[in-house]
């Protein structure tokens, strides 16, 4: 991360296969001063993450091609993204699913439906800690 030029605004990757939710997330975070990169499936998200090295990734669990759990594991295996904060965003809400998310290496877990303000607060909390 240190090798990258300093960014004016934090870069957030949002990945979801639902266009409306993607729009919601990006609108709210952009309003809060983040730059948001959009991905519509797991594979695209992986590619963008490795290329753009965002400051945080907001990943849906049920996505085509590569689901959020698997994507998290892959990102953790890569040198460039191994320390990148990851928040999982999902409709699956059973305890076993939450555990699976943390096992895969996620930093936080947001359940759908969610409040856009709470989403912004959590993103801010994680990025502010660093």
């Amino acid at each position: 991360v240190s090798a990258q030029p300093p960014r004016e605004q934090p870069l957030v990757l949002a990945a979801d296969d639902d266009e409306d939710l993607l729009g919601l997330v990006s609108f709210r975070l952009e309003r809060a001063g983040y730059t948001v990169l959009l991905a519509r499936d797991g594979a695209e998200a992986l590619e963008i993450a490795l290329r753009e090295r965002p400051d945080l990734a907001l990943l849906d669990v049920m996505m085509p091609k590569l689901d959020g759990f698997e994507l998290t594991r892959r990102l953790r295996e890569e040198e460039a993204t191994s320390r990148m904060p990851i928040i999982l965003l999902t409709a699956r809400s059973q305890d076993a699913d939450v555990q699976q998310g943390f096992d895969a290496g996620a930093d936080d877990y947001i359940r759908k439906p969610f409040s856009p303000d709470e989403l912004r607060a959590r993103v801010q909390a994680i990025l502010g800690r660093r």
Partner: protein
Amino acid sequence: VVVVPSTSARDGVAAAGAGDRKLWKAGVGTSLALCAVFVLVPAEHDLVRYGIVYPLTEALAVAAIVYGVLRYRPSAPSAWLLIAGGLATWLAGDLIWAYYLFKDESPFPSPADFFYLAGYLVIVGGLLVAVRRRAAGVDMRSWLDAGMFAVVSGLFAWIFLVEPTIDDPSISAREAFVSASYVAGDLLLLLVAVRFVMGISWRFRSLELLVLGLCLTLAGDVVFQLALDSAGSSLGSGDTLLLLGIASFGAAGLHETMPALTEPIRVPSKERYDDLRLVLLTACCLIPPAVLLVEWASGTGLHLVALVVTTVLISLLAVARAEVAARRAMRTAQRESLLGSYASDLMRADDEEELYGMATRTAASLIDDGSAAVVPADGQAAAHAFSVPVEARGEHVADLVADADLLTIRRNHYALGTVADELSLALEREQLRKREQEALAALSAQNERLLELDRMKDQFVSTITHELRTPLSSMVGYLEMLTGSDVGELSKEERERFLGIVDRNCRRLNRLVDDILTVARIDSARFSLERRNVDVVRLASERIESIRATAEQRIVGVELTVENPPPPLYADPMRLGQLLDNLLSNAVKFSPEGGTVRLNVGSNEDTVHIEVADSGVGIPADEQDELFTRFFRASTASTVQGTGLGLSIAKSIVEAHGGTITVASEVGVGTTFSVDLPVQAPQETAGKGEAAR
């Protein structure tokens, strides 16, 4: 006191074809009348008795037998014809004797004696034919037993009939030889008769009469010989017995059951009278020493030579009989062990074919000088010398058949029955085992299926949760931003866009809830149609318009073509709309950017045809059968969200309308769903709210 003709028909060979009972009664009556005449006519009218009545009775018997043969057609007529021949020979002798009487002469010996003696041989020949034909199922012991009877009888004949004749100085050697020849003839007849009796069945009147005739003939001869020896007065009674015997032969030959004489015994009965035979044989063995004892005690000279010869002969016969019995016991033991290993082999067999093979092999080993096999039950079993049905669970599945001589069949009758019975049991066991296996396999397949269903259901719950929460998340999120968020000021355009998004997701959620409710209805059989006349083209264009916004968002074109506008369809417009929505949203979902979804509506006389075609990912051929199964999702659909409900619902709707839905698809090219709906709905479903299934 001789013959009481039975009036009730006894089951017999000729029971099938009506016998001539009247003729038989007339014949018997005539014969008895002749016998009565013979007895009643005073002795001084010998010419009438021996020249007319006697030959007449014999001629009548011969005619009766010949008539019987022609009428009842026994399978081997030679037996009866030989008996008739014997009687005819006696007739010839009697005619010669009548000639001598006419000339008032009574030479002894005379040519008549030659005919009398020859008659015995001819009758014996007839009985031998009968024994061969009918009682072949009786083994060697019967001949040995008959031999013992004949030897003992011979002892008495020697002591009481032959020796006195030889010792009598007034009788020349020639006369003595002829007298002894009569005795020899009687002994031969006795031997064959005893053997014959052992093989017959007493169920036939004709055979009873034949045996009666033989007894009377032998008795008559004995009385005759004794009377001759005492040079005496009671000549008549011996001749009366002989005459009654001849009448019996005639009555036997004329009776409707006469073919039984040479009818082979198909299923031989168990050897009866075994115990009685043993008692009689023991008595036979004891007779020579008993005679010796009596003669020694009474002090009338001993017949030592005769006794020694008799004892030696009986001993030889007894040894031979023991040998036969031992061989038989050995064979029985072999059979037992064969059956024993057969029974244990059956336990180890793996399938029915093996069981049949074992039964055939065992039966063939039993019938070593013939053939035996288990054959399918084809109704041809009766063509074999022996057959016994094989049944499994009350069903006649096969026959165990054997072809061999009757003695072999008789010996193995019970063993073959056991083979068949054991096979029946083993087949039932095998069938039960197979059913059990099938039941287990079915159970395990069902288990697999249930596990698979359970897995699909888990998947479904997870999917449905996701599908419900996704539009809900958009609605909740955008509404929060529109109402109570710290997001800041929103422009008018933004507010309108957000409201549009909320509205779209509301509809999406609504459609999803509809699908889930529909599935629940289908499951609880509360799925009903509310039919009215529907303009299919109008309905199609409405649905096209409602999907257009979603399609354009995905950069997918939609177009409607109408080929041959269908007449109003009597159907449920809501369900038909749901069907179109499902097919169209599927097509849009799976189309690539820039693709086109085509909805085609057409009709012919009795069918409305709806086709939805996309240029999407396609469905592999081996998955197309399962496509309409609930929760099933094609492997090519993994990149697209969905519940796996839409097509199963579509199929239910189409079937509720009495139509069919089919799919044609090629991976990478596209998919076309074709729906055919009958224009004229079935009459009984035209009512209100009928059940879908």
